[in-house]
Every structure is written in C-alpha cells, then in structure tokens.
C-alpha cells in the first residue's frame, strides 16, 4: 500500500534520511526503532507531507504523494498522524475534538459524528469524559483521545510518532492497549517507538534505523531475538538492560 523508495531528507549538510526504501502492506503494523536522531520522526513527518522531501518517491497505492502539485489535503485525509505531545485543541471539548474532522472535512452530520465519536470513546474507556476539556484529563487520557481523533477520520494509514514518550510509565499501558486494539482491527500502522516489549507483541515487522538508513528489518522474533547488525545489538542491549 505504501511504497517508499530512495527517500532523502537533508537539513543543511546533515543527511537525516539517506535514500531510504520501505514497503508497507495493507493491514501491516510496522514499528520503527532506533536511537534519537536516527530519522524515525523525520520519516513520519515526510509521510504526512509535513516536511518537503529532498529526493525519492513516496507512493500511496500508485499515487506519488510527494509530488509538489498534489492536493495535500486530499492525501492527509487518508493518513492520520498522532504526535508525542497529544496536540488536542484546548478550546474544544473531548467530543468536539473528535467530531471536528469528520464534520468539517468529511461532511458527516453532527448527529452521526457524535454517535461515532461516542462509540470510539467507549472503546478506549473515555465515554464519561466526552464533555470534559483536554486540560482536565491526564496525559494518558489525552493521548487516547488524540488517537481516537485520528481514527475517527478512518485513515487508510495511521502514523504514530512516539505516542507514549511524554507519558508517565504508569500511563503508557493504557495508550498502548488502544494501539494494540487498532492493530487487531486491521489498521495499517507505522509507528516510531521506544517500547520494545510492545513492538515484540504487536509489530508484524521491526525496522531498525540508524543514520537515516534501514540497517535491519524483519519479524520481531528475528530482529529482536537474533539481531544481525552490531548497531541493533548495541541499541537493544541498552534498551533491554
């Protein structure tokens, strides 16, 4: 479904993504692992067209989405992204945060958007918070709402950029449970994460990045248990210690 070939991103003299190739099939859950600065976040930002790319192609099915002539809004309607810092709209209630996109972008009626939002909120155990405002919620609750807000747009591809990194260890589980649930429901997901245990459980494929290149990839059993590359081994040793 998603095919990345030769993707390059440069900041000044610093090559952040170095002719990167990656294919993601429909329904696949891909976890990006790697140290800070390895290019995980930049890759996700390029996929959502938040950063102009410096070379290479990003294709969603057969459409080259990093064509500068493309309708960016139409592409983003198919791709959802959730960031580390929740980024809920503080002036809107939880329900309005979730229904805004479907109503204004997809043209769903108010009543239907509301029903769908309440259903999704119930799935993540937050139906009682529908009328609360983001600042009244815990970080974990806010991040669950942010996930639901992205999912309410029924994206074909969901990008998650270290969605648990800003959370208290006690709250990480509740957010990952939502991601696990989405993955089980067949959602195609590309996520950058530091949660190796979670990646082992949920990912179909682990992609290990270093210096803007993929140094190793494969099913978790292979990459996490028998890492071939020295950099992967060092990284895992540090993170599993």
């Amino acid at each position, binding site marked *: 479904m998603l095919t990345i070939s030769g993707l390059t991103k440069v900041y000044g003299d610093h090559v952040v993504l170095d002719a990167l190739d990656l294919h993601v099939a429909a329904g696949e859950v891909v976890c990006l692992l790697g140290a800070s600065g390895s290019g995980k976040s930049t890759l996700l930002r390029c996929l959502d067209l938040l950063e102009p790319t410096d070379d*290479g192609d990003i294709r969603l099915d057969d459409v080259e989405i990093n064509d500068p002539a493309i309708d960016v809004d139409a592409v983003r309607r198919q791709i959802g992204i959730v960031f580390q810092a929740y980024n809920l709209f503080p002036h809107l209630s939880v329900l309005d945060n979730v229904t805004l996109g479907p109503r204004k972008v997809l043209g769903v009626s108010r009543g239907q958007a509301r029903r769908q939002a309440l259903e999704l909120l119930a799935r993540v155990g937050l139906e009682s918070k529908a009328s609360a405002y983001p600042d009244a919620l815990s970080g974990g609750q806010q991040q669950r709402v942010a996930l639901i807000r992205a999912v309410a747009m029924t994206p074909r591809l969901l990008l998650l950029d270290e969605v648990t990194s800003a959370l208290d260890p006690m709250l990480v589980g509740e957010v990952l449970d939502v991601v696990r649930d989405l993955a089980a429901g067949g959602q195609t997901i590309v996520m950058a994460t530091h949660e190796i245990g979670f990646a082992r459980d949920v990912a179909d494929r682990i992609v290990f990045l270093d210096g803007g290149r993929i140094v190793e990839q494969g099913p978790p059993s292979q990459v996490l248990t028998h890492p071939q590359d020295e950099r992967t081994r060092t990284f895992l040793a540090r993170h599993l210690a």
Partner: protein
Amino acid sequence: MTREVSARQLEREAYRRRQTRRRIAVGLASTIVVLGALVAGVVTAPGWDRVRETFFSWHHAKAAFPDIADAFWLNIRLFLVVEVLVLAVALLVAVVRVVPSPALLPFKILATVYTDVFRGVPTLLVVLLVGFGFPALNLGGIPTSLFWLGAIALTLSYGAYVAEVLRAGIVSVHPTQWASGRALGLGYGQTLRHIVLPQAIRRVAPPLINDFVSLQKDTALLSAIGLVEALRAASVYQANTFNFTSIGVAGLFFIAVTIPLARFTDWLGIRALRRQSGA
C-alpha cells in the same frame, strides 16, 4: 556537499520554483489592480478638483510646513516625557494590583478605582480637568506650565490603560514560573522582577506599543488647553487661509512617527517568535 539528485526530483524543484514565481506574479497583479482601482475611484470623483485644491494644495503645504514642523517638536517632547511617566505609573499600579499583600489593601483599592475611572473617562475630559482645574487649586508645588499640566493629564489617562495591559501580562505568566522562582529561593519581589516581569513584558509588547502609538496621536488633544502643538499650528494656518491642506500636513507628521513604531512592533513580535522556536 553535493548530492546526486534524481531527474524526478529536479522536475519537482522546477515545479516549486514555477509555483513561487506564480505566487509573486499573482501578488503583484492583485496589488496593482486593487490600489489602482482605489486611486482611480478617488481621482475620477466629480468633486476631485475642488477637493484637491482645498485639501492637497502643494502651495499651501509648502507655506504651512515650517510652522507645523516647529510645533511638532512639542508633540515629540511631550510624547517622550509622557511615555516614560506612563511606564512608571503603569508598572507601579499593575504591581500593586497583583501583589497579594494585605498591608497594600488601601493602595490596591486606589489602584483599582484609578484604572476603572481613568479608562472610563474620555481623554479630552481629563486634559480639560487637569489643564484648567489643577492651576485653579492654587496649591504650591503643582506645576503651572501648560507643558507639564498636559503631560500629567496624558499620563493619568494612558497610565490606566497601560497598567491593565501590564497586569494582563503578569497574570498570563504560568503559575509554575512563580513556583520555580520561589523554589530557587528567590523572594516574591525578586521572582516578580527577574522571572515574571521579563516574560510578561515580552508577551504584551505588541499591545503596549499599540498604546504608545495611540499616545503619540493624542498629544494633539493638548491643543484644547492652548498648547501650540502641530494640530493647533495647522488649525491656525487653516483659519487664516480657509485651506485645509495644513491639517493634512500635520497628519503626515503624526504618521511619520507612528508607522516606524508600528513596523518596529512587528519586528519585535517576529524576533520573539524566532527566538522561542529556536530557529
């Protein structure tokens, strides 16, 4: 450093350059059309010749210029003096209103009444009250020069506005900043001075300078108590010649000082954004 760039990428970059050129062309075309239509609309109005002679006469502009320029110097001096006084008064009032000290209660009440009353009363009224009322008190120590009476009137009026702007800025600084300052062992006053006020003033710089722009214009109100500032000088010329060009000339003087200040405010805002985002 050179990279091998694919042919497709060169196409993309060429497309982006074309887009940029198109945006510039559209901006220029739209500007020419809109401004051209505005000018054409005014110039082709039936009364335009008459208006041009009465309001935009080059001859009268030249004749009125020296007197107005002299008088405008007074506006500048007033403005510079009042700006400093306003900042001092406003800061004092704002701080008194936010400091949680019971001993300051009477001053807090006074400060609240002051901001409420002087923001509610038209500036012209304050000018008249101070300009004619203060001297009539016959108290020793009250200045009798019109310059200082005018300066006091404008300070009273603008001090109230600026105090509220500063107070809004102080209140908008997040409570954790107070807590962090106090946690370092700084006292209340030290926290206010070194942590909270610097952030507050940066945040309210645009509305603050907005008030100063407004103050520059309002120095013209002091013509009401007989100060011969730019507007007064222009009115004198107009009364003698029945031509309004002098008023427009005075207007240009005011614009000449307010526009640079407005651009300066824009620049401050952009700089603050850049600094905080680290770019």
